[in-house]
């Protein structure tokens, strides 16, 4: 049996890892909630965002957090353009096509990154990369504590945007009833693209939060997307609070089951939850009835 300090550290580690999972899942669930598609390019987009942070640091010495000022608008615009110019036109109104288009995009992005950056694993070294906050006997990694607060802030901003702004209302309208929204004069194509852009922007934030302590190679995004998908299902497809809580919960489950069952078997915890949710509560914790 482990000492209480170690258990507490494991729970905190889980929360810190889970916060980033949550942000990645928020992007995925937002796109699902509005467009009703699983974006298979989500992982590749995350990888691209991480490389963007890496390049800004390597070429211009830009701090990964400050890089958000460039990458967040950049990835929003990119996501908007991709939905507007590629996915939308290519889908011909059929969701099945969208799946394949995003899958194709994922392959193109991954291989483009492989050509440009080769397959090396890269990381960046920032002065605070090894900084810790000492709380009693615990050493909490400073960049990961920052990540938790940034994720909570982003979730709050996103919630306010969806609840209060006109565009947010339009997004919710399209999510609920596409035909009705179009009938009252909402530009559905525009709203789709805005949503896709928001999803990509979430990934840009996640990339900046990951890079000070993590690493990047052209395939790294996939490591996060499978777990993000589990979180989306757990929280309820399309639910932002669900994704947030689900992310934190999965982080803690992964951490504790890793501690007790070993890192390899610990992954079972995540997918056991995935199966149980599908069996007993297919709508997820916060999901609306279909």
């Amino acid at each position, binding site marked *: 049996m482990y000492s209480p300090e170690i258990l507490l550290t*494991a729970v905190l580690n889980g929360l810190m890892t889970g916060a980033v999972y949550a942000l990645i899942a928020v992007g995925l669930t937002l796109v699902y909630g509005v467009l009703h598609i699983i974006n298979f390019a989500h992982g590749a987009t995350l990888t691209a965002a991480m490389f963007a942070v890496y390049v800004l640091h390597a070429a211009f010495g830009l701090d990964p957090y400050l890089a958000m000022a460039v990458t967040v608008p950049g990835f929003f615009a990119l996501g908007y353009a991709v939905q507007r110019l590629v996915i939308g036109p290519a889908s011909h109104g059929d969701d099945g096509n969208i799946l394949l288009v995003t899958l194709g995009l994922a392959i193109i992005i991954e291989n483009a990154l492989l050509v440009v950056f080769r*397959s090396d694993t890269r*990381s960046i070294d920032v002065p605070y990369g090894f900084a*810790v906050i000492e709380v009693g006997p615990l050493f909490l990694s400073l960049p990961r504590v920052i990540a938790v607060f940034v994720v909570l802030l982003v979730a709050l901003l996103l919630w306010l945007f969806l609840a209060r702004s006109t565009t947010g209302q339009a997004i919710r309208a399209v999510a609920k009833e596409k035909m009705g929204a179009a009938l009252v004069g909402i530009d559905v194509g525009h709203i789709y693209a805005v949503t896709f852009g928001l999803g990509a922007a979430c990934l840009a934030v996640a990339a900046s939060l990951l890079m000070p302590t993590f690493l990047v190679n052209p395939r790294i995004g996939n490591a996060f997307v499978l777990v993000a998908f589990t979180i989306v299902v757990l929280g309820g497809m399309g639910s932002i609070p669900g994704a947030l809580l689900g992310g934190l919960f999965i982080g803690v489950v992964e951490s504790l089951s890793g501690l007790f069952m070993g890192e390899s078997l610990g992954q079972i915890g995540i997918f056991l939850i995935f199966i149980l949710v599908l069996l007993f509560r297919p709508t997820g914790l916060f999901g609306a009835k279909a």
Partner: protein
Amino acid sequence: MTTTSSGIRRRGLLAATAALPLAAPHVRAQPAAVKIGILQPVTGALAQDGEHGRLGAEIAIDHVNRAGGIRSLGGARLEMVFGDARSNPEGGVAEVERMQAEGVVAIVGGFASPICLAASQAAARYDLPYIVDVGVSDQIVQRGLRNTFRFGPGFGTVTRAALDNLVAINDAAGKPAKTVVIVHEDGLFGSGMARLLNAQLPERGFQVLETIAHPTPSRDMSNVALRIRALGPDLLIPSSYYGEFVLLARTMQQQRIRPKAGIYAVLNGAASNFRFVREFPEAANHIMDCNHWADPRKPLTAEVRKAAEATGRFWLYNIPLNYSCVRLLADAIERAGAADRGRIIEALAASTFDGHIMPYGPTRFENGQNTGAAPVNTQVQNGDIKVIFPRAFADAQPVFPAA
């Protein structure tokens, strides 16, 4: 005009290398090039290794051609037919078939054991000589395939050397390491290593406190670090791939976990990788590895390393291993005196080649395995990777205990 000027340049080059007694410029037409297959995974999970393996082969081909090609074939140039094994055995086999169709006389490479196993078997159907560059699985040379040769050491040799060397280094320092924690990736490679270490370490006087498995890729190594802290071992023995090991080393540094005697890796993806050393000099400092490594005392090693680093890549062991394998093949073709597969296989089997840059001595194949092949112990010391053991090849003293 062009022939004359190239002849003069060639003469200058040959005189500079001073290796050829018959350095007359060839004004007649070049003989047909000898095609050799270079098989490496340059896409997929193993692409980093594959790219560096290809680089080593390219430098070797360049050196052979610049020194006058294959002289017994009238100065025939070596021509690379490259195949991407796509990080899986099926990809490797498909490329062997293509290389066979393109008329290669031999194949070098494969990198990962599963690729080497499948590709060498595919090559055996055509009696096509196959030189394994890395693939450590001992099965590779135990199938009775007469076309398959492995220049580097196998898993059994590496692990035996790793344990013997550890005991020697530990004894010399007054046995500071008694307790061990093993961290390994949960695939075939890491799990096999962990099983073997668990069986062997107690016999050699070490107590294994715990064996921790982790998946590849891992998103977080905090828990592994936590358990290491809780166990407080003298020595940590990790067998992981690059990304996970870097993550673990960084987390341990952040959490201020420093095993007293140090970190002793076996065939680790990062501990003898200059990218890790350059990016995290503090986390990497004093980490030891038992792995393939070029002989630092050979002058040719420095030359190959310079050529490799000029391409902007880091000096990984794949480069000298593939360089040496291609030079070994060129030597065999030279002695075979013909681009004939059967005769090249015979020439390889009888090889005593010593123009390589590995710490092995003259080559001698026994059932396809180079009996002189052995790993060395390296240690990261102040931003450089030094050979610390065996003493005959070492260019630095071990820092042990490391903390």
